[in-house]
């Protein structure tokens, strides 16, 4: 495979794909198209270190982005079309780029507020560097921030802003923050935010944003009106697939691929990152889409490698277990697997104060996830069980008998009673 490889999307998945293409020995043309002006950067600090002011934009650069051999970066102009007949990517300015293999990695964008008050000043979303810098400036004045949405981004920004002395209220229709963690762990996250002075309004949606020009209030479905100097809308992300509308590719929110990240419609089209839908062995073959950092790394690497394999039957399937993390206040939440797919989440081990714990998620009697609070090393033990397919009951029994488990040393002993 010596023809041009074109990667559409210049963020983490695109970068890892580009690196993998070169490592795998491709010496031909390598073009990476990005809508943003920047070389790939890392987004997790945008809601934390950068927003706090501990880091600047330059600190978010991804090492190695400027060192992909012979990479032709086309930055600042989004792709507008994929013409599979002509085997070309068409950019918004009309430029065409021929490909032999193309990797789609255009990711997601933040979902915006579409209700009354859309377009008011002081209403933010958080996805890219520009968003983060604008929100940081707004928070410098202190005042009142209302966060709409208690997911990852909403909770992280709430924690960061509260530590900067901003008065923070978080609103969500869900009964607890971080929905995929389930009600028990979600309840513990709610306790944590409230202990840090954050006002949580759960089980209620937002009816309208109010203000003349600049937002001044958020009106809730329950009739409450919250004063606001700034509003962050953190209600999830939307895959950037509109540019593929006339490509003929199967789209189901994201672009549908097989387990090797090859499009189900075209062996010369591969996918990676937030827009990739693929059948996950962990989910029993159900098609999933994962919007997390390590997923973008693993899929970028695999798509890059597989793009150089001419025979689709010889391509390698994705076997890595998804992982993600979130830092809120002094708690590091980490998960492996697919917590959102679990129908039951059970705490397997915990310290007596509940500050550190690991829980497992099961679905139809299969282990599908493990979640840790401040317990990375212990999570590794569960990650191995997840990869091995150990049944949940056996994992719980082994954890209960493991002297290295959290709280094991403090547990009352049976002997002598």
């Amino acid at each position, binding site marked *: 495979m010596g023809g041009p490889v074109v990667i559409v999307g210049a963020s983490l998945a695109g970068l890892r794909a580009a690196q993998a293409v070169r490592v795998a020995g491709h010496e031909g043309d390598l073009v990476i198209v990005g809508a943003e002006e920047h070389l790939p950067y890392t987004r997790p600090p945008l809601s934390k270190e950068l927003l706090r002011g501990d880091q600047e934009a330059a600190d978010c650069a991804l090492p190695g982005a400027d060192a992909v051999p012979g990479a032709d970066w086309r930055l600042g102009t989004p792709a507008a079309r994929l013409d599979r007949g002509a085997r070309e990517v068409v950019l918004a300015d009309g430029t065409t780029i021929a490909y032999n293999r193309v990797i789609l990695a255009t990711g997601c964008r933040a979902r915006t507020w579409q209700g009354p008050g859309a377009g008011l000043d002081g209403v933010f979303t958080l996805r890219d560097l520009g968003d983060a810098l604008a929100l940081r400036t707004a928070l410098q004045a202190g005042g009142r921030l209302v966060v709409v949405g208690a997911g990852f981004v909403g909770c992280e920004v709430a924690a960061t802003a509260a530590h900067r002395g901003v008065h923070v209220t978080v609103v969500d229709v869900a009964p607890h923050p971080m929905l995929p963690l389930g009600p028990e762990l979600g309840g513990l996250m709610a306790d944590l935010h409230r202990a840090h002075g954050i006002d949580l309004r759960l089980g209620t949606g937002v009816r309208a944003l109010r203000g003349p020009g600049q937002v001044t209030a958020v009106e809730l479905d329950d009739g409450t009106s919250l004063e606001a100097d700034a509003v962050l809308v953190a209600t999830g992300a939307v895959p950037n697939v509109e540019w593929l509308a006339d490509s003929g590719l199967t789209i189901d929110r994201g672009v549908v691929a097989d387990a090797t990240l090859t499009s189900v419609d075209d062996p010369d089209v591969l996918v990676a990152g937030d827009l990739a839908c693929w059948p996950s062995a962990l989910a029993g073959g159900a098609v999933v889409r994962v919007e997390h950092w390590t997923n973008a790394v693993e899929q970028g*690497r695999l798509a890059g490698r597989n793009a150089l394999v001419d025979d689709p039957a010889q391509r390698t399937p994705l076997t890595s277990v998804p992982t993600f993390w979130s830092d809120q206040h002094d708690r*590091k939440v*980490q998960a492996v697997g697919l917590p959102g797919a679990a129908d039951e989440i059970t705490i397997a081990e915990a310290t007596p104060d509940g500050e550190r714990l690991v829980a497992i998620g099961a679905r139809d009697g299969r282990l599908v996830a493990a979640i840790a609070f401040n317990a*990375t090393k212990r*999570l*590794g033990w569960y990650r191995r069980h997840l990869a091995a397919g150990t049944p949940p009951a056996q994992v719980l029994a082994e954890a209960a008998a493991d002297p290295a488990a959290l709280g094991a040393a403090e547990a009352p002993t049976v002997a002598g009673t």
Partner: protein
Amino acid sequence: MKVHVDMNLCQSHGECVFAAPDVFDLGDDDVLVWKEDVDESQRAEVEQAVQVCPMAAIRIEG
């Protein structure tokens, strides 16, 4: 080759431990420990660790 980890950046995500378990490990306090002198045969694993580190804290020399 030598493996360097910037412990001012490391936040103990543990991804490197999975990428290269013979090189990286976490102590019971979740603080990272690692081998500084690593055999060339483990380069691929260590390079994977570099790529999956969310903090970009790992660097290979040589």
